[in-house]
């Protein structure tokens, strides 16, 4: 009857092996727990405690989804498979060892078929593990992608894991070589290795000695791995799922938190480590250093000072260094903002959220950046152009510094008179936005939009000079008070109308109206592509021509990644008879044009090549594509410029989706 034998081959002469083994294991576990506690304590000691234990069910589901099943890790094939194989193998080994422990002391479950299945599964996962380890070795030491740092810490961890599995395999094979049980093939890998020992003609006593040695070695390695886990690269095994657990399951990724307040209701600005929240400090410890964020960051690709991975790891280093100096408080003499994190690093962010999208452990880079920007803003530490822009927003409600009375001047050239939503009841309120209203090169598109709306028989109106900038970017710059002011004014204007549906041609406006204005059920907010898509599906929008152009579509960050509107614009493109060729980075991997986060109003950020230029190069590499379609006014501005500076004017033309629609109607 196949069954598991406790401590096979381990002599009693050392005292009861069980005592020995469990002492070592408990000791290692104790060290792990102590070390982890000392680390975890810092999050609460240094940071503002914001750990919440509500919504336990959703939190646990997320921890399992992202932390154990690791669906975000799988979003990239090679590293995904690589990590899953290693992680799940160890999960299986852990469960297997757990079952063995239960079998030893509580209930003999590993008897008969369950035992054989146990053996088989463990062995299969040895293969799985080595496959993954092989992928890891190749990737880290031969392929050497830029985003992965080659550190001794990582190498040590990998070596330890390999040694553990190898040790376990060898131990098993040595025992099988001695026992040669009838069910040996249920441990296929071990049994194959055992053949080697058998072929070498080693005596049973030699094999048993080796078994003892390797088994002890295996035990030692496991003990070392467990006790060093909290101070090595494997810490993320704990901090990753824990961070995922504490991340608010109801908060949309990329959403900004309000400014935290202290007990006297005064705002707290992130000037030093102890203003960061415990969850933020935890996220720095949860970072697996995978570098996916770095790979997708447009600011990094442009050669600016921002590297999202470095940002988070600098926070981690700051925590570590602070802890060393004096367990409870803040820095050594180095300031969080300025020394650990240069101001330029903070200002270079475009708030595109690609980092958040890719991060497997749900680190919120943009959140930390905005928190620190809020401090810089309150201190007035920003470049002059940005300061002027904020002053313009405050005084004139637009970034151009032009009178609010000039906002709707473009409408004087419209073919049909545009209704005033403040006076006439209309079905749709078209919130036009700053760029579409004031920028002279964009008003052409604004007029086309009005024409299209009119030809579709839409009953729409605009707010004329009661419109103010929506404040989306103001919030990302960190001027929360100014955002509140703009929001108040806009909501007041909105409340004076009778319509319930807001259309916008600006994804930034769309994002903040939908998610940050708390409009609730009073208003339905739509991007114009959603509306047109709807109209196409119910047959109200029909195209008379097939454009037969080969085009590519650039997903605006605030429409795509932030609000998941990917297919509506694509359906419209296809309905106009165009052939859509996707850029390698599209949908949730779309590469930001670089205008967001206030960038379009900053000029002192040093970079090698603008994100918009990088993107145009990406588009121009597509065979036969002549049009670059966008659905955001800032995109038009950035990309039209980039086409000129990269010299691709004869190859590719930048158009707004509405222009295709207008041509095809």
């Amino acid at each position, binding site marked *: 009857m196949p069954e598991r034998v406790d401590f096979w081959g381990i002599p009693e002469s050392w005292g009861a092996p069980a005592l020995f083994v469990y002492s070592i294991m408990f000791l290692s576990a104790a060290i792990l727990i102590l070390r982890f506690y000392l680390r975890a304590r810092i999050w609460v000691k240094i940071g503002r405690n914001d750990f919440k234990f509500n919504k336990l069910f959703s939190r646990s589901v997320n921890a399992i989804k992202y932390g154990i099943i690791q669906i975000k890790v799988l979003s990239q094939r090679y590293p995904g498979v690589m990590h899953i194989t290693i992680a799940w193998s160890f999960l299986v080994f852990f469960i297997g060892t757990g079952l063995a422990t239960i079998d030893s002391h509580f209930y003999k479950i590993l008897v008969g078929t369950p035992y054989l299945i146990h053996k088989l599964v463990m062995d299969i996962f040895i293969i799985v593990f080595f496959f993954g380890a092989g992928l890891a070795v190749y990737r880290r030491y031969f392929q050497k992608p830029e985003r992965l740092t080659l550190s001794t810490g990582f190498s040590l961890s990998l070596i330890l894991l390999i040694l553990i599995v190898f040790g376990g395999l060898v131990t098993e094979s040595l025992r099988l070589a001695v026992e040669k049980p009838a069910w040996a093939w249920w441990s296929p890998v071990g049994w194959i290795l055992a053949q080697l020992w058998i072929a070498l003609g080693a005596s049973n006593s030699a094999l048993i000695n080796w078994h003892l040695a390797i088994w002890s070695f295996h035990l030692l390695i496991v003990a070392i791995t467990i006790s060093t886990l909290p101070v090595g690269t494997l810490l993320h095994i704990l901090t990753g799922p824990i961070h995922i657990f504490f991340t608010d399951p109801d908060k949309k990724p990329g959403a900004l938190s309000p*400014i935290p307040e202290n007990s006297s209701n005064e*705002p707290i600005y992130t000037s030093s480590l102890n203003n960061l929240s415990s969850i933020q400090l935890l996220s720095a410890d949860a970072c697996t250093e995978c570098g996916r964020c770095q790979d997708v960051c447009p600011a990094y690709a442009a050669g600016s000072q921002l590297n999202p991975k470095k940002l988070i790891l600098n926070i981690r280093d700051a925590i570590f260094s602070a802890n060393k100096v004096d367990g409870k408080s803040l820095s050594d003499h180095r300031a969080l903002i300025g020394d650990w994190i240069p101001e330029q690093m903070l200002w270079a962010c475009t708030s595109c959220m690609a980092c958040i999208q890719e991060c497997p452990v749900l680190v919120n880079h943009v959140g930390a950046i905005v928190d620190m920007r809020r401090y810089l*803003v*309150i201190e*007035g530490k*920003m470049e*002059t152009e940005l*300061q002027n822009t*904020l*002053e313009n927003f*405050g*005084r*004139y409600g637009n970034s151009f*510094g*032009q*009178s609010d*009375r000039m906002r709707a001047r473009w409408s004087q050239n419209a073919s049909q008179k545009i209704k005033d939503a403040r006076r006439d009841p209309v079905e749709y309120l078209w919130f036009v936005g700053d760029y579409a209203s004031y920028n002279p090169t964009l008003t052409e598109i604004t007029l086309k939009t009005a024409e299209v709306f009119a030809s579709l028989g839409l009953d729409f109106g605009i707010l004329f000079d009661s419109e103010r900038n929506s404040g989306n970017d103001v919030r990302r710059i960190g*001027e*929360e*008070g*100014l955002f*509140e*002011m703009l929001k108040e004014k806009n909501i007041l204007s909105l409340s004076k109308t009778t319509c319930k549906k807001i259309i916008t041609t600006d994804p930034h406006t769309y994002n903040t109206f939908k998610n940050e204005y708390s409009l609730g059920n009073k208003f339905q907010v739509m991007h114009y592509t959603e509306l047109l898509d709807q109209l196409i599906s119910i047959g109200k929008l029909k195209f008379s021509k097939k454009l037969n152009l080969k085009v590519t579509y650039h997903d605006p960050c605030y429409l795509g990644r932030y609000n998941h509107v990917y297919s509506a614009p694509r359906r419209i493109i296809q309905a106009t008879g165009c052939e859509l060729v996707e850029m390698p980075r599209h949908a949730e991997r779309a590469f930001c044009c670089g205008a967001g986060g206030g960038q379009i109003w900053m000029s002192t950020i040093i970079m090698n090549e603008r994100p918009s230029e990088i993107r145009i190069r990406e588009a121009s590499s597509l065979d036969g594509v002549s049009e670059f379609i966008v659905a955001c006014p800032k995109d038009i501005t950035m990309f039209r410029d980039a086409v000129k500076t990269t010299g691709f004017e004869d190859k590719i033309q930048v158009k707004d989706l509405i222009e295709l629609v207008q041509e095809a109607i």
Partner: protein
Amino acid sequence: MKIAVILKLVPDLVEELSINPDGSSLDTTWMRMIINEFDDHALEQAILLKEKYSGSVTVISPEFDGVDDVLFTASAKGADQIIKMTGDFSNSNNHALAKAITPFIKEIQPDLILTGVQANNDLDGSLGPCLAACLEMPFAGYISGINVEDKSILVRKEYPGGVISELSIFLPCVIGIQAAETPPRYVAVSKVRQVMKTSKIDEKPISEMDQNGGVKVIRMFQPEASSHAEMINGTPEEVAERLITVFNQIGIIK
């Protein structure tokens, strides 16, 4: 050291200005009033001096629509006391303003009085020199740098051609600021809103306005240009072509 700053609101030139039907005053219906840019610099210079040499800054402004915001912003930047002179300033001129401010200055007894070197709606000279005469203090205008000595200040006065004259002036004195040493700082909206809850504006009513010193306005009008540029329209290509022709004509390129 005690510093007083006089802030005035002036018409915002971003808006289109129009003249009343009576033809002798500005139409205020659509006029936006903003802080005089040079007064903003004067305030910044005062705050910089306070930060460098310690002391206090008192800001005085005549009552006008929107002045509360300006005063609270000054307080958020670091002004210790903000005073609003209440009364009817709609038809005032700088002479009247200077005479109205004088008693308050005498009350405060500052060591240094800063104000902008000019304002875009000055018609009877700028405020600084008038105020200096009322207070019988020395005056220096077009100043872009101040250092404080024991009982005097060292200032940099701008002359044409980039020439600077360094002057030593006994305190107390009145200074007309051309530019602060660094541009006016940014104050976050939330800071101003917070200050609105904690600070108070001292309201000081003025006695009658004495307009003497200004001249009588007969009419206001928008300038008819004696000439106007020949405007070139078209696409950037076309405009560039035309400019090349002009360059050729005047002999800049051959």
